[in-house]
């Protein structure tokens, strides 16, 4: 339970990175990296110790953040097994990525800024994992968004990077608006936002509002478009934020709010996840940018995890989050090594790298196979767990349509094998000379010391993509320690441990292995599709399916045309109305008063003048008073106001 050590560790995990952000930013080009690596190593140490002493969900450490006459809002942090494991994972990948970045970043990179932002990210991510209530979680959620914005826009002089950063933040904001509304409604309904007390089911609408937060952060349909664009950021950042940890925050959120989601809400979650899995897989098929393939694959895998959450399979979703983090980080870092060597991200200019970069090749191959779901690797285990859960869920549904979800998920796993095989084929096999004439000499110049820093983390991540770290049985994680890490009991506490692990139908493993084999074989052939392989910067694919895949189902075109553009038009229109109608009325009233004054003046001069001698006298008197007060109008107004007031009082009496 709650021990002083726990409190100290949690505080340190939050404070060190934020202090580190300032310290690293203030440090020099040379020391920023080592300092940041040191701090994250400390964080890793803290989180490992914290996990090792965590058994049951801890009692939250609460502090009063603010109090009004209405009540108070607490800041609280707590730890449980699931968040502890993810905390260790986040620190571990962050550490690897920072070490890797030492070699990856070139000389004029502005390291204090880079490593500082990474520290900010690590702290914010820890905050999400450790938050004990929705409001605190939301606060760190936004800070993670800031870190992502800053890191995507790290090369701010590139207009594409600046645009991508903004797009990421805005897409996330759209999700977060719903999320915030959901939190406010939850607060209204339950009078608290503490996870430990949010155990009853909330109305479906409220649950879906909360889910919007996940849709933004985890790039679920239709808020997908920011993630591929986020690849404008430095590749190690893509590995850490936009593959392994940050985008998985949405999955973690779903696990946290799972008890609040009604069955109807869960169906929507499952549907959105499944749609995203398919959409991402399809979009990855024909990409030519090595990072974009991986980005869409991340979208697809996140969809898989969300679908797992929707099909009541917390264990499977979080398990896939964990395995995905390792092999996808490995893939990104491997891709980074390739990009660093060839100075291009275009796969059409790559080829045959298995000869020149053998270590990277083998590590990449293992990670890719794990992602594709090849047996004896971690990805196979977690995907089986998700699929088995989905089939079990469909069994329990009343409608036969429910089987659509596991079947589509199965199909999108097949797609994974397809696009990964295509990528491996394009990058590492084939004939290099025809593709990358200009690039090869550059590779020779790469200093060997740096290349070891670039390969070692990838190798380590490839090793961690084996099955043995997660389950002794290579073909099923059922009954392994993963289930004790990621279960509702682990998240919510309690003594009974309901066995939520799902036994897969017997035909599932053979079927998916066959699918993977088929996908792999197709993928190896797909690489040569001539419509994509043209050597031009702007491919003009004439086949609609290629075009649709490259532009991810025209989703962005749709959003730009039917959402972004109308909002900008509405803004311009509102402002025009403001300037012409609202302000026009004001100016018109002003002009009208002047005209009226002139008319009155004329009437006065020609009609009434002779009659009102007394009035003239009064006017002279007032004029004299006015003239005597230096400066004119305003003082006289004040005088008039005071005199007038007294006059009125006198008249009334």
């Amino acid at each position: 339970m709650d021990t002083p050590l726990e409190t100290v560790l949690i505080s340190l995990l939050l404070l060190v990175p934020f202090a580190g952000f300032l310290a690293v930013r203030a440090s020099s080009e040379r020391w920023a990296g080592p300092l940041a690596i040191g701090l994250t190593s400390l964080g890793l140490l803290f989180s490992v110790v914290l996990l090792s002493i965590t058994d049951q969900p801890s009692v939250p450490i609460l502090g009063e953040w603010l109090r009004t006459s209405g009540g108070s809002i607490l800041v609280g942090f707590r730890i449980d097994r699931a968040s502890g494991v993810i905390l260790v994972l986040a620190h571990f990948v962050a550490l690897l990525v920072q070490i890797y970045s030492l070699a990856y970043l070139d000389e004029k990179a502005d390291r204090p800024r880079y490593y500082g932002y990474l520290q900010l990210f690590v702290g914010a991510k820890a905050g999400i994992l450790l938050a004990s209530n929705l409001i605190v979680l939301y606060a760190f959620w936004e800070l993670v968004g800031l870190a992502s914005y800053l890191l995507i826009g790290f090369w701010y002089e590139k207009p594409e990077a600046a645009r991508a950063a903004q797009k990421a933040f805005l897409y996330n904001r759209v999700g977060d608006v719903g999320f915030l509304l959901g939190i406010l409604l939850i607060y209204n309904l339950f009078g608290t936002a503490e996870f430990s007390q949010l155990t009853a089911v909330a109305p479906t609408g409220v649950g879906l509002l909360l889910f919007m937060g996940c849709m933004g952060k985890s790039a679920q349909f239709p808020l997908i478009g920011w993630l591929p664009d986020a690849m404008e950021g430095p590749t190690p950042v893509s590995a850490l934020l936009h593959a392994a940890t940050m985008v998985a925050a949405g999955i973690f959120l779903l696990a946290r709010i799972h008890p609040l989601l009604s069955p109807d809400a869960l169906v929507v979650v499952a549907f959105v996840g499944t749609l995203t899995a398919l959409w991402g897989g399809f979009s990855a098929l024909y990409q030519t940018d090595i990072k974009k393939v991986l980005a869409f694959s991340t979208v697809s895998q996140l969809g898989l995890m969300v679908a797992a959450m929707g099909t009541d399979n917390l264990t499977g979703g979080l398990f896939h989050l964990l395995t995905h983090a390792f092999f996808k980080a490995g893939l990104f870092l491997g891709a980074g090594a390739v990009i660093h060597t060839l100075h291009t991200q275009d796969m059409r200019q790559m080829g045959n790298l298995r000869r020149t970069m053998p270590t990277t090749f083998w590590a990449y191959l293992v990670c890719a196979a794990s992602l594709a779901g090849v047996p004896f690797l971690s990805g196979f285990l977690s995907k089986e767990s998700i699929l088995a859960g989905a089939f079990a869920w469909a069994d329990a549904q009343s409608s036969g349509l429910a089987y659509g979800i596991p079947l589509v998920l199965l199909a999108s796993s097949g797609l994974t094998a397809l696009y990964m095989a295509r990528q491996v084929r394009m990058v590492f096999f084939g004939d290099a000379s025809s593709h990358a004439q200009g690039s090869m000499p550059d590779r020779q110049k790469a200093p060997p010391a740096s290349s070891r820093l670039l390969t070692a983390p990838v190798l380590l991540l490839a090793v961690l993509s084996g099955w043995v770290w997660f389950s002794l049985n290579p073909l099923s994680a059922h009954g392994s320690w993963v289930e004790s890490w990621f279960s509702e009991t682990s998240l919510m506490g309690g003594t009974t441990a309901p066995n939520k692990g799902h036994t897969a139908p017997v035909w599932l493993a053979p079927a998916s292995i066959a699918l993977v084999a088929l996908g792999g074989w197709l993928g190896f052939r797909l690489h040569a599709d001539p419509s994509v392989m043209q050597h031009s910067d702007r491919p003009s694919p004439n086949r609609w399916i290629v075009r649709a895949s490259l532009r991810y189902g025209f989703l962005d075109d749709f959003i730009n045309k039917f959402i972004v553009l109308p909002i900008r038009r509405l803004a311009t229109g509102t402002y025009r109305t403001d300037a012409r109608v609202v302000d026009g009325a004001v100016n018109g009233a002003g002009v009208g008063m002047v005209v009226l004054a002139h008319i009155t003046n004329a009437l006065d001069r020609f009609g009434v003048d002779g009659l009102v001698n007394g009035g003239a006298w009064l006017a002279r008197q007032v004029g004299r008073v006015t003239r005597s007060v230096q400066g004119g109008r305003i003082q006289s107004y004040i005088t008039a106001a005071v005199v007038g007031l007294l006059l009125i009082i006198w008249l009334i009496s």
Partner: protein
Amino acid sequence: MLLSLLIALPLFGSLIVALLPNSQREQFRWIALGVTAINLLICGLVYTAFDQSQADYQIGQQLDWITLSLGSLGSVSIDYLVGIDGMSFPLVLLSVVVMLIGVISSWNIQERQRAYFSLYLLLTGTILGCFLALDFFLFFLFFEFMLLPMYFLIGLWGGPRREYASIKFFLYTLLGSVLILLVMIGLSMSVMDPISTALATGIINGPEQADTNIIRLIQAQLANGQIDPSRIVHTFDFRYLSDGGNYLPGSFLSVAGETFPLGIPSRMLAFWAVFLGFAIKLPIVPLHTWLPDAHVEAPTPVSVVLAGVLLKIGGYGFLRIAWGFFPDGGAEYARVLGGLGVLSIVYGGLCALAQNDVKKMIAYSSVSHMGFVLLGIASLTPEGVNGAIYQMVSHGVLSAMLFLIAGVIYDRTHDRRIDSYRGLNHAMPQYATLTAVAFFGSLGLPGFSGFVGELFTLMGSMQSEWLPGWQTALATLGIALAAGYFLWTLQRMFFGQYWTRVGAHVGDSGAHMGAPLRDLTPRERGMLISLGVLALVMGLFPNLVFNLTSASVGEWLKRFLVG
């Protein structure tokens, strides 16, 4: 005494500056700096004396000022009465800080320094007078007098269209003042001062004998018509105006007051009149069009004061006067008022998104952010009202920072168009960093004060029994819009390859590479960093503000339980 000093010191300083010969030109700004700095110190003293648990007015001072016999209608007393409570004190603190920053930002004013600093100090004194006065007459005097320095500060030191802007500002506010004035007169005729009336009727022989029993007794007598009208002492005292028991039965603004055609009770009309008066100041759409013009034309320090402090008098007037004296109006029309708040939030946000002038963009963002204040107040919940006050303080700090930021670039190039700049991050990294801080703070990033203000007003409106849920839902769109217009500005001005259209005027097509712009001077850096730190500290420790407001707001809300 301390509070009177807060008002008197700037007024006295204004006089000194006005009387000094021009040969002492160098001293003017030092006097202004000294006065505002001493004011800050005095506020520090007040802070230590302020009892956070007390809901009532405190640290007050009262002097008899004017007593006027109205014959058979009794008499009216006007007092010099100042004091603070949890609602005004945070705004007093904010004013003192922003006015000090304003002086520092005025440091390089070259033209007519004497007039400038004299008017500036006059403005300082009258603003503080507004927040401190507890007598409606005194409040109104300060409220009106504020217009004079503001009018000249915009009209003489402003940009190209300064005359139009200053006249517009003046007339708009004047219109509001007339409405407020009418209600003030009506109130004074309808409300008695129980203690003075007790003295006049001979129930007690000295003011020291007055206690709650006596007040209850005299109020009961009033209700039963046992008091001779000629002995009633009418009052402008805020404390008596907010107590329904002091309203003369059958008077113009009593609860069962007169009814106008269409069945509108006079109290509701009076509520709308003061509401409109202060809504112009806040400003609330569609009464906001003076604001973008005034901001764009005003010199930087005046924009800072205008956005940082002056707008808050509108919100303060809502709390103290519109809702304070006419709680029935606030309750009756809560939905409409909340709707107006939401309209301001969304409308201001959309207009901000359409701007190419960075100062106008910030001005419209102010309209949007002030909408949250109205929404929070209209919710009539502790969260909403505390949040509204917090939002005012937070916006005061952040908008001051934003206008300083606009001033920095205008100072360099005299060009405020967003599309005249690209990649400023390259030439002015410190400026870019602090701009990002201000923008993210304003768009509601947790950690900064803007987040707390928005969270609380939204929380209040969501919980409110008076407001429908869709209003909160629409208001959250304002948060998304804020991210849109701030980040888009950031992207257009600060990212990309460095390029500026230095010195080019509207209509010139000759864009050229100018010399790199100078990064922040130590003075600019100091101002921006201190405001940024203030927003951060408030965001991390919101209790600093809520502890001040909470007790008074709790007491204030009780008046809505009855109706």
